[in-house]
């Protein structure tokens, strides 16, 4: 029979490794909203936002106000350029924005370029995309596309996330709603190679 100290080593491995794995997963879960939380913002990008973008067409445009959804939005850019005659595709250069759902919940975003495609119901940020949220999460990626009619957000390129959970690097990422009818059932998917790091303790 194996000596007690041999088993002790095995038990020590389990005792150390498994709770730590639970810890890292638990700390990551808060990236997802509670299943009972219904995300309204993704269902329709506020029409007033699109109106602002469509009408701007000027150098150094800025907007600060309250959307129909009740959220406060600040939007800055160096340029807004409608790309076709019916203004269905709009390019926005050097975009930065702050969306405030309420005093405690906000997010800021910036990118070299933004593209809103009203026909396809997509909003894309391209080049040095950076998103910060009030819960301490920083997301950096080369591109971020919001399919706002489908409750789908995805990156094609590498994504880096930093927050209370530590850091996550992945080849690509997707966030979507499995059950759009109920508005619940959120899925966060990291693909093309995932690396998570979490520092714990003293």
């Amino acid at each position, binding site marked *: *029979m*194996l*000596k*007690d*100290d*041999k*088993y*002790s*080593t*095995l*038990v*020590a*491995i*389990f*005792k*150390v*490794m*498994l*709770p*730590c*794995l*639970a*810890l*890292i*997963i*638990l700390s*990551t*879960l*808060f*990236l*997802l*909203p*509670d*299943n*009972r939380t219904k995300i309204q913002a993704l269902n329709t990008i506020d029409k007033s936002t699109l109106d602002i973008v469509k009408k701007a067409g000027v150098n150094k445009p800025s907007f600060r106000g309250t959307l129909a959804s009740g959220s406060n939005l600040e939007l800055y850019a160096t340029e807004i350029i409608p790309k076709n005659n019916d203004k269905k595709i709009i390019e926005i250069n050097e975009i930065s924005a702050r969306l405030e759902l309420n005093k405690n919940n906000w997010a800021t975003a910036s990118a070299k370029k933004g593209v809103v495609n009203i026909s396809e119901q997509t909003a894309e940020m391209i080049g040095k995309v950076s998103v910060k949220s009030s819960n301490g999460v920083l997301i950096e990626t080369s591109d971020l596309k919001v399919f706002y009619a489908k409750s789908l957000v995805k990156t094609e390129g590498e994504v880096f996330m930093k927050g209370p959970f530590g850091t*996550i690097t*992945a080849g690509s990422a997707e966030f979507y709603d*499995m*059950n759009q009818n109920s508005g*619940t*059932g*959120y*899925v*966060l*998917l*990291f*693909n*093309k*190679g*995932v*690396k*998570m*790091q*979490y*520092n*714990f*303790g*003293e």
Partner: protein
Amino acid sequence: MSQVSAGTNVSLGSIEMEKSGTIEVTSDSLKIDSNVGIATFDGNVEIKLNKIILKAQKITVTYSIDENSKQEITEILAINDVFFISNKDITKADRALYSLSDNTIKLSGNILINQGGTSFSGEELSINLDTGQGTMSGRVKAILGSDE
């Protein structure tokens, strides 16, 4: 070589937990599905904590959310080519289930524990991590060797 009867009870000493460190997880993909409360690391999963490594082809973590939105891990399941590696010590199994409610781990399928020249094989190993008490069942075989 010696045979050990099925249902053998072993007394395991307690050891202090790591108080600090970095845990690193790599895998081909990670899916966190709040609909079913499962996070899945899929493909070449490797978890490193200081000198301890856990490898498996897939690791699923099941969690629950209570009425106050408190999230709690209930179990962790590692399947296919499961290895726990610490220095020269290797424990291998087809499946490892860690249940947080009773703080037990159950290894099953082609278990091989190799520590310092001594190896121990069997079909099922259940360990209570609170007491350190473990039970090996199925056909158990021990090969005793030196630490060198």
